[in-house]
């Protein structure tokens, strides 16, 4: 292979005047002058400085870039809280069928019955999984689902003539929860965790008052632990008239085993890109539907997918978009949500069925507990103990604090050394209440052999660190780049390609040219 000296050239730096990939369809109408159609004062002064490249150049450029990414289809990706489970290939095929992919969102419902029926059936399925029958698919991702939940809570209280100002979140919450609280116009109040990693009920009682609109809770929590006090939490929260919100990031632990609605939650959001296999795409797309209890239903976003009564003459049911929802919080986004994601997630639910979903959660929990047991071996547990000495659910949190103390290797160093072993590191430094946290979520789709190998790699890195901590401290070594200057990047942000070539640079327009001088 030719030395990849030009790996980091951007598509703009590969540009050369006169090259192109696009050939426009012929102008088949009588041409009129540009000035007549669009007066000069409305036109831009110079063309957008886009790349000038041929098709083979584009393909080669992005294929080359792709090889500088690690991905789930290639290796183990135990990123806690992200549920990196296998993305079935079937889903890409069916989402690409023209009847789905080329559907205009404003097509009349009479001509969109397949799409609306699919959405209605997904709503029904998610409602059954959540134990809360009323579902809106509209939110675009988990964070927008959270915002939907907070806005639904606001609408519910306002409709009762109540003005509440605070929302409670545990100190273990995902960062999106507190950010959502602020975006939803509330003040965030933090609830402490107790020594077992549960919500501290005394602290909750002290903070739950008539000003509290909602408690946002993840269960299992971000520590990978089931809130054993959930029934008491439910009584406290509902006792002050607040809503109980379920962050669905960790739903993968309990599908078909226990339902948020049965625990007393009023509002649930799903992450279809976590529990329901929408590929993450390197940071989206996702979808964040919400399921709610009957008393919240009137406020769901508009429009809602509904099924008309079955005709008395046995005719087909009619699926429609219902805009006539006077108490609705309104829209959170355009059109009907991320339909392409719905196709994939509903295909997953159909493929697995009820037994398969339960098996997925059981196996996810089995895999997590097995990996936790393997990491309790001698040579690992002294340095990386479990943050809480309990059985875990679908994920668990280790603390690298002893490792940092005794070996001078931080959790970050361990994570970077894992990169050299072809493994994506677990989530690091979260949850915030665990020192040097390492949050591991293997998911159900990994084999026992993969889990064994991961445990062996961790043990090996720790052995190596005992001999020479600098190996981990300076890792990685085998990746396309090594540790990057993030502080410098934030201090002097370079967030787009400069039009001017860097001083002393070679002609970037020549492919395979030398690397520009640093």
């Amino acid at each position, binding site marked *: 292979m030719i030395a990849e000296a030009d790996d*980091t050239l*951007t598509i*703009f730096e590969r540009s050369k005047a006169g090259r192109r990939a696009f050939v*426009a369809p012929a*102008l088949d109408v009588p*041409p009129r002058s540009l000035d007549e159609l*669009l007066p000069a004062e409305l036109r831009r002064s110079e063309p957008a400085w886009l790349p000038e490249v041929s098709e083979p150049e584009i393909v080669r*450029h992005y294929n080359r*870039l*792709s*090889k500088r*990414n690690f991905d789930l289809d290639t290796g183990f*990706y135990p990123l806690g809280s992200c549920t990196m489970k296998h993305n079935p290939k079937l889903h890409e095929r069916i989402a690409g069928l*023209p009847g*789905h992919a*080329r*559907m205009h*969102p*404003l097509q009349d419902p009479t*001509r969109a019955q397949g799409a609306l029926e699919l959405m209605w059936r997904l709503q029904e399925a998610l409602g*059954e999984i959540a134990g809360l029958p009323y579902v809106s698919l509209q939110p*675009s991702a988990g*964070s927008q689902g959270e*915002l939907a939940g907070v*806005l639904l809570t*606001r609408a519910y209280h306002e409709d009762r003539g109540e003005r509440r100002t605070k929302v409670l979140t545990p100190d273990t919450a995902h960062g999106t929860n*507190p*950010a959502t609280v*602020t975006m*939803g116009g509330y003040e965030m109040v933090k609830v402490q965790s107790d020594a077992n990693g549960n919500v501290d009920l005394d602290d909750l009682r002290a903070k739950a008052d008539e000003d509290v609109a909602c408690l946002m809770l993840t269960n299992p929590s971000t520590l990978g632990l089931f809130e054993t006090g*959930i*029934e008491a939490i439910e009584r406290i929260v509902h006792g002050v008239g607040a809503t109980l919100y379920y962050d669905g990031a960790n739903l993968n632990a309990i599908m078909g*085993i*226990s339902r948020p609605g*049965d625990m007393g939650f009023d509002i649930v959001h799903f*992450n279809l890109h976590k529990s329901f296999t929408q590929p993450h795409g390197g*940071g*989206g*797309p996702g979808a964040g539907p919400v399921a709610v209890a009957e008393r919240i239903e009137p406020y769901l976003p508009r429009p809602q997918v509904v099924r008309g009564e079955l005709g008395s003459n046995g005719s087909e049911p009619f699926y429609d978009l219902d*805009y006539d929802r006077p108490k609705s*919080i309104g829209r*959170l986004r355009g059109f*009907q949500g*991320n339909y392409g994601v719905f196709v994939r997630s509903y295909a997953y639910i*159909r*493929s697995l*069925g*009820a037994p398969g979903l339960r098996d997925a959660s059981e196996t996810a929990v*089995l895999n997590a507990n097995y990996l936790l047991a393997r990491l309790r071996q001698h040579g690992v547990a002294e340095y990386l103990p479990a943050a809480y000495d309990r059985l875990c659910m679908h994920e668990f949190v280790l603390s690298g604090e002893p490792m940092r103390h005794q070996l001078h290797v931080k959790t970050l160093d361990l994570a*970077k050394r894992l990169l050299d072993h072809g493994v994506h590191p677990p989530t690091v430094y*979260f949850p915030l209440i665990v020192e040097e946290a390492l949050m591991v979520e293997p998911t*159900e*789709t990994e084999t026992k052999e993969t889990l064994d190998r991961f445990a062996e790699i961790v043990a090996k890195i720790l052995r190596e660190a005992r001999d020479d901590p600098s190996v981990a401290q300076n890792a*990685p070594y085998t990746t396309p780049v*090594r540790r*990057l*200057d*993030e502080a410098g*990047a934030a201090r002097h942000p370079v967030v*787009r390609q400069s039009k001017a070539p860097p001083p002393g640079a070679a002609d970037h327009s020549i492919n395979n040219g030398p690397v520009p001088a640093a």
Partner: protein
Amino acid sequence: MTRYTSATDADREEMLAAIGVAAVEELFEDIPESLRLNRQLSLGDGRSELEVFEEFRALAARNTSAEDEIGFLGAGMYDHYVPALIDSIIGRSEFLTPYTPYQPEISQGGLQAMFEYQTAISELTGLPVSNASVYEGPSAVAAAGYVAKHTNNRRRFVISRGVHPHSRETLRTHAHAWGMEVAEAPLNGGVTELPDLGEDASAVIVQQPNFLGAVEDLTAVANAARTAGALTIAACDPLPLALLKTPGECGVDIAVGEGQSLGNRLDFGGPSFGFFAATEALMRRMPGRIAGETTDVDGKRGFVLTLQTREQHIRREKATSNICTAQALNALAGVIYLSWLGREGIVELAELMLQRTAYARERLTQIAGVTPLHERPVVREFAVEIGAPVGAVIARCREQGVNPGYPLWREYPEHPDGLLVAITERRSRADIDRLADVLAAAVVAEREAVGIQA
């Protein structure tokens, strides 16, 4: 065992033994008995891949897609041709299946693509800073409003009636929670007529071209907003920006928009992406991921997520937004598309749409009784009033295999017979001629049916 898991019975036995429990049920002992679902979910059994494929194929077959008719629907999403190389590239596992690039050393491909995307969006909008994407168009308008709110702490948005109805409603949903008012600026002659902005306007929000297809005078809007101490937010259709004076040139502070028409399929409304670009002054208030260039310990060029102290995972309740997962794959399709079009191609494509749209507008307004809803310049979409019941006319056209466009009555009751017609490079002159013929016949027939004189 299902087909997506691998634990054999023997594996399970070994794993349970290693954990020190006898059965999987014991792993769930923390869940109170009263909260367990002691039945199966009523979702039926699992199905084979073939059965699922056939089921979803049958659902798709019950939709009338852009494949099945000559369609002129637009109104925010457009039936453009998506070049084959996009499917090929974004279908690669290395782009399709990673998470957000939290480990930059093994995510250089995605991060560099974000950097390239940001550059392309910056170029289109004429604004120096773009983030790596937000969800989609209308929520991007609300996200821009959130930036304005934090920038000047004023209590009112002024949004043009020419902004997409979904965007206006989305802004209202959010503004209510922020305790802010939303005032609507009317349209006059097809374009925004700004009222006196007063002293409490946080931002003025317009769309370019607006929902009725008209090109707005962004410069005048931005000047008025600046005089009143408000920010200007422009929701832009990205392809017309190939020709139009850029938001940056016009003095706009934040340009957002729906990115679907840049290499993303229709997908019944999503997933697509929203773009978000702003002035340097607003860079540290922007929502979402931003990729930045840096170097590694060996001095090698690299890319990272930067300015992360804006974001929810660091700043929590003080974050500039709650957004986490956005639309990275769709934005990647966007930058590939823009590279495919290229510097000259994007202008050629936009000019083709401009010419065909002008032709279509002329053809349709030659139909007796069909009049332009406004006379302003348009690029890829225009509105007419057809002087006949619009729902029935559309139904007649559809019987002829033509979907003539989007009826305005629901969102613009002042134009009960208004029709919004969108043109892309997929709609040839022959398609437009067919539309004109079918629409003319339908209009005549419906007028006769209700007794209107042409």
